[in-house]
């Protein structure tokens, strides 16, 4: 087991936290888990805001070395892309979360820069009809 620092990308939010490398497992302390992903380890399971996901049957996720990152992603049904050699992981949005948002028909909010670096949000244009056009140079 080695003490390392890992970069975790939560959708697009990046943070660097200490972790334990246990063979091919990355284990995070409760503090690191909270810092990187906003989830708290509580007696009733993994919790964020009002929501708790019980660890029932997955008690193996938590050891002395911390919480297993792959297991956390599985428990939350979120995709995890991991590069152990470079110590970087990206935990994306679940298909269920994205689907629920789109099926609600409420257009997902975004904030993106223009060429001058000025940031624009979709909600800045509430009250107007918007034709959203995604394109690319390729």
């Amino acid at each position, binding site marked *: 087991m080695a003490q390392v620092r890992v970069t975790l990308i939560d959708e697009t939010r990046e943070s660097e936290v200490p972790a334990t490398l246990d063979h091919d497992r990355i284990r995070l302390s409760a503090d690191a888990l909270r810092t990187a992903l906003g989830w708290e380890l509580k007696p009733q399971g993994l919790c964020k805001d009002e929501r708790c996901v019980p660890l029932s049957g997955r008690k193996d996720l938590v050891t002395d070395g911390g919480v297993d990152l792959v297991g956390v992603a599985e428990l939350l049904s979120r995709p995890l892309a991991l590069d152990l050699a470079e110590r970087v992981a990206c935990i*994306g949005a679940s298909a269920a979360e994205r689907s629920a948002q789109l099926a609600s028909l409420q257009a997902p909010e975004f904030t*993106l820069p223009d060429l001058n670096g000025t940031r624009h949000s979709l909600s800045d244009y509430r009250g107007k009809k918007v034709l*959203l056009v995604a394109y690319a140079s390729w």
Partner: protein
Amino acid sequence: MVITVALDKGPDDARPFIEAAAPTHPSLIDTDHSLADLYRIINVPTVVWIDEQGRIVRPNDAAFGSDMFKELTGIDPLPHLNALRQWVKENKAPLGDQDVHHFQVLPTAEEQLARAEFTLAWHLHQHGKNEAAERHFVRAGELAPHDFTIRRGSMPIRGIDPMGPAFAEMYSDWVQRGRPYYKPIPIDSSSPSPSGRGSG
């Protein structure tokens, strides 16, 4: 109003297009493909109609504002433009909520994993870890073989010509598999209904 979003690796890729068009509308750059993730955009151009309350009234569709790609795609831009005018000027909603649901394609777990792999690859690339990045760009493409934003969109980042042989191979495979894409939304001046769709 129009909001354009360029799914490009940097502002300089989109700059010539934006400067040539000299638009008055917001012309945004999305180097992280976060819009593609939020809206399940798998190719460009993709248009989405959003009303005054921020509701999607016409989901993802391939539509073109000019004749530029008419020959390539067989898509005539005029019906779409007419429907757009009707919506803007006469407040005529293009679809009912049920139809919007019908024409939406929601993301799968595999597609979301492909996006996470893409995000990881893009991060690694930006930190000069090109070899590691390549592994994850490849993995993302395997998970979402028909997602152009991932496969073709990663080509310029990886030093691959997005008009070259790698793209030709991807394109012919996509054609062979029946051009999997969004569900084409019929444009009809009468009330559109999924059940009334023709095979075309």
